[in-house]
C-alpha cells in the first residue's frame, strides 16, 4: 500500500502559494489528505524530486526557475523520466522605501549606476562616484544611496540580476573590448558601502529599512502588499507594479513560477492530477492565490499548460 499524502518541496517563493492551494485542496477534496509542502529551495526541491520513484520521494517540486539540464539528467539517471512542467503565474519584484520618505521613480540604469562598483563614464570604467540618488539623475530624491538587495541564495536575485542590473548595464553602455571576465565582473561586483545583500527573508530587509530609513529595499510584491503601511513602492520605467501591470508584461521585474510533477506517481499517489487541476483552476484557487500576491498568468497560457500536463510525458 503506498503513501496517500502528496509530498511537495522546493522554492520558498512558491511555498506560500503551494501551501494555500494545499490547504484549500485538502478542504475541498474530502477524499484526499492535505498535501505536505516543504521548502528547501528550488535546488533542494529538485534534488529530492530527482532522487527516484517511489514512496520515499516527493511528487512535486516547486521552482522559481526552470529546471536545468543538469538536473534533468540527474532525474533521468535515477529513473525519473516523466517530468511535467507547470507554469502557474508570476512573481513581481518591487523596489520599496520607507513610507515616510520621498517617492522613487527608478529605471534599471539608475539602479545599476547606484550599485555597481565601477560605472562607465565617457567610455571607461571608473569607481562609482555617486553618493546621492540626485547625482545619478536630477529627478531622483536628494538622498544618500542605500540599497538592500536579495542575497545570492535567493531565487529573486536571479531576476534582479537579469532584469535590472544586466539591463541597466546595457543601457549605460559598458565600454567595448572588455574580456569575458571583466564583463562578468562589471555586472556582478557591487559597492559594498551602500549595498546590503540580504540572505534572510523579507522581514530582514524590512528591518534594514527601519534601521536606515534611507534604504531602498527589494521585496516581493506580496510582501509589499502586506506591509503597505510602512512601505512605499517605487515605479520602474514609470510603471507602478501591480498584478495588472505584471501580468500584462509591462512591469519589467518579474519572473514566472513553476512546479514540476512526477508523472510516474500519477495514479499511484492519489490526488496528484486533481491537485494540479485545482491549482490552475480559476474558481477555487485563483482568488486566494491572487490575494496572497501571486500574479496570475493569462488564461490562454494556463489552458496551454494544463493541456500539456494532461497530455502526459513529452
Amino acid at each position, binding site marked *: 500500500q503506498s503513501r496517500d*499524502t502528496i*509530498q511537495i*518541496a522546493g522554492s520558498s517563493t512558491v*511555498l*506560500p502559494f*503551494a*501551501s*494555500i492551494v*494545499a*490547504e*484549500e485542496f*485538502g*478542504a*475541498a*477534496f*474530502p*477524499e484526499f*489528505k*492535505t498535501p*505536505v*509542502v*516543504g*521548502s*528547501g529551495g528550488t535546488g*533542494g526541491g529538485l534534488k*529530492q524530486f530527482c*532522487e527516484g520513484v517511489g514512496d*520515499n520521494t*516527493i511528487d512535486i517540486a516547486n521552482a522559481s526557475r526552470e529546471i536545468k539540464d543538469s538536473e534533468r539528467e540527474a532525474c533521468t539517471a535515477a529513473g525519473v523520466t516523466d517530468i511535467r512542467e507547470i507554469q502557474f503565474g508570476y512573481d513581481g519584484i518591487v523596489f520599496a522605501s520607507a*513610507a515616510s520618505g520621498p517617492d522613487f521613480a527608478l529605471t534599471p540604469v539608475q539602479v545599476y549606476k547606484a550599485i555597481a562598483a565601477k560605472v562607465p563614464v565617457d567610455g571607461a570604467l571608473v569607481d562609482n562616484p555617486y553618493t546621492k540618488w540626485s547625482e545619478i539623475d536630477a529627478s531622483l530624491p536628494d538622498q544618500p544611496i542605500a540599497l538592500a538587495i536579495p542575497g545570492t541564495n535567493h531565487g529573486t536575485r536571479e531576476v534582479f540580476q537579469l532584469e535590472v542590473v544586466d539591463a541597466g548595464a546595457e543601457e549605460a553602455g559598458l565600454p567595448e573590448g572588455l574580456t569575458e571576465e571583466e564583463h562578468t565582473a562589471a555586472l556582478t561586483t557591487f559597492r559594498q558601502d551602500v549595498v546590503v545583500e540580504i540572505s*534572510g*527573508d*523579507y*522581514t*530582514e530587509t524590512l528591518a534594514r529599512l527601519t534601521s536606515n530609513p534611507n534604504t531602498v529595499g527589494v521585496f516581493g510584491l*506580496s*510582501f509589499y*502588499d*502586506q*506591509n*503597505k*503601511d510602512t512601505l512605499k513602492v517605487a515605479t520602474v520605467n514609470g510603471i507602478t507594479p501591480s498584478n495588472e501591470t505584471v501580468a500584462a508584461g509591462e512591469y519589467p521585474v518579474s519572473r514566472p513560477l513553476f512546479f514540476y510533477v512526477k508523472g510516474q506517481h500519477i495514479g499511484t499517489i492519489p490526488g496528484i492530477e486533481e491537485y494540479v487541476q485545482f491549482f490552475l483552476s480559476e*474558481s*477555487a484557487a485563483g482568488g*486566494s492565490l491572487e*490575494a*496572497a500576491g501571486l500574479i496570475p498568468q493569462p488564461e490562454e497560457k494556463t489552458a496551454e499548460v494544463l493541456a500539456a500536463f494532461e497530455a502526459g510525458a513529452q
Partner: protein
Amino acid sequence: MADTLSTTAPASNDRTRLIRASLSRRHLSESIFRGLGLAAIIVALGFVALLFVDIVRKGIPAFTQSNLHLSVTFDPEIISVDPAPVRAAGQSEADFQAANLKWQRDVAMLNWNKVIEASLRAAAPAGYEIDTRQILTIAETDARHRVRELFVKDPTLLGKTVQVDVLASANADNWIKGNINRDLGDAQQQLSAPARGLIDQYETNGTITSGFAWSIFTNVDSRAAPASAGLLGAFVGTLWMMLVVILLAVPIGVASAIYLEEFAPKSRLTDLIEVNINNLAAVPSIVFGLLGAAVFINYMHLPISAPIVGGLVLTLMTLPTIIIATRGALLGVSPALRQAALGMGASKTQMVFHHVLPVTFPSILTATILGVAHALGETAPLLLIGMKAFVAAVPATPLDQATALPVQIYLWQGNENRNFFEPRTAAAIMVLLVVMIMLNGVAIYLRSKLEKRA
C-alpha cells in the same frame, strides 16, 4: 631568648600600626569587589526579567482574537446541489461511499463565499455600500469551509438560518487591535475604506467580539487563513521527536555510560572514547544538522522533514550530554555500595543493574529531562533536514512530515503578515517557554529532592 623578646615587643606595636593603616583600603576594595559581584547577579537576573517581560508583553495580544458572529442562511438558491445520497437497499457499501464522496465534492465546488457574503451583509447596516470582494476580506478565508462542513454534517440545514461563529480575517484583526496605524491613508491600508468602516460598525453592533484564541492550541498552521493558524501540528511534531529521543538517546546513553564507567578496561581506546564524547557534547548543533542531511536523508533516504529524522539528529546531539551526566552520577555512587554488592557474591553486571543503577536513577532522570528539554528547543539542525516545511496536518506517525515548535517560531517570525510577525510569534514562544520551564522545573525539583536525600 631575651634577645628575641626585646625585638618583638616594639616590632609588635609597629606591626599593629602597619596593619591598621591598610585596613580601610582593604575593606573598601572588599566592598567594591562584592558590589561588582552583586551587580553581575542583578544584571543576569535583569536580563531574565527583561526577556520574559518583553516576550509576554508582545505575546499576550495574540491570545485574543476577533470573532464574527454571523447568522448564516443556507440559501437553496446558492446551495443548489442534489440531496445527500441515502443508502438505497441493495446498494453496496463501496457504491454508497463513492456516491457520498461525489456529493461531498459537489458541495465543495459550490461558491460558499456567497453564503458568507450574504451573512456579512445581513449583519451590516441596511444599505451599506461595499462590494463583494471588499466585504469578504473581513471574514477569514476558512469561514466558507466551516459553513460547508456544517452543511455536510447536517444536510437538513438547507433553507435554515443558524448562528455561526467564524474568525475575522487577520487584516480585520490587525485593524481592530491597531497593529496598523489607523490614521494612514487608503493606499497604505490592507483593507479598503468601506471594509474598515464596516468592521467598526460590526464592533459597535456586537457582530465582532474578541475572545480567547483557542485556535492557537487547536489548529494547525495555515497560510490561507492566517488568523486561524495554530501550533497543534508543530507541537505534535515536537512530541514525536521527543519520543524518538527518549526511546533512543536514553537507553543508548545510559548503556554507554555504564559500559564506559563500569566495564571498560582503562585503555587508549576508552580514553579516546571519553575525549570523543566530551568533544561531541560541544560540537555545534548545526553540524549535527549537516550530519543528518548527509547521512539520514541523502544516504539512508529517510523521509525528509519527518520527526523520525529530526529525532535521530537530536538523539545524536543529546547522547553525549546524557552519557556525561550518567557517568557523573555513576561515579558518585559510593564505593561502599559496590563493595557490599560484590562482597555478597553479586557479579559485576548484577551489581550495576541491581544496586548502582537504581541509586543513580533520579540523577539520570534529571539529566535526561534537561537533555531532552535542550533538544526540544533546538532549531538550527532541523532547518537543514527540511523541517522548515509548511505542514497543515497533525503528523499521525513519526514518519509523516511535520515541523517542530521552534521551527514554527522561526517560520512565523519571517512571515509577512503583521499578525504573525511579533504577536503570534511571541505567543508561540510563550508556549514553548512554558513547556521548557515545566521540564526544567521538574528537573530542578528532582535534583533538589535528590540533594536533600544525599
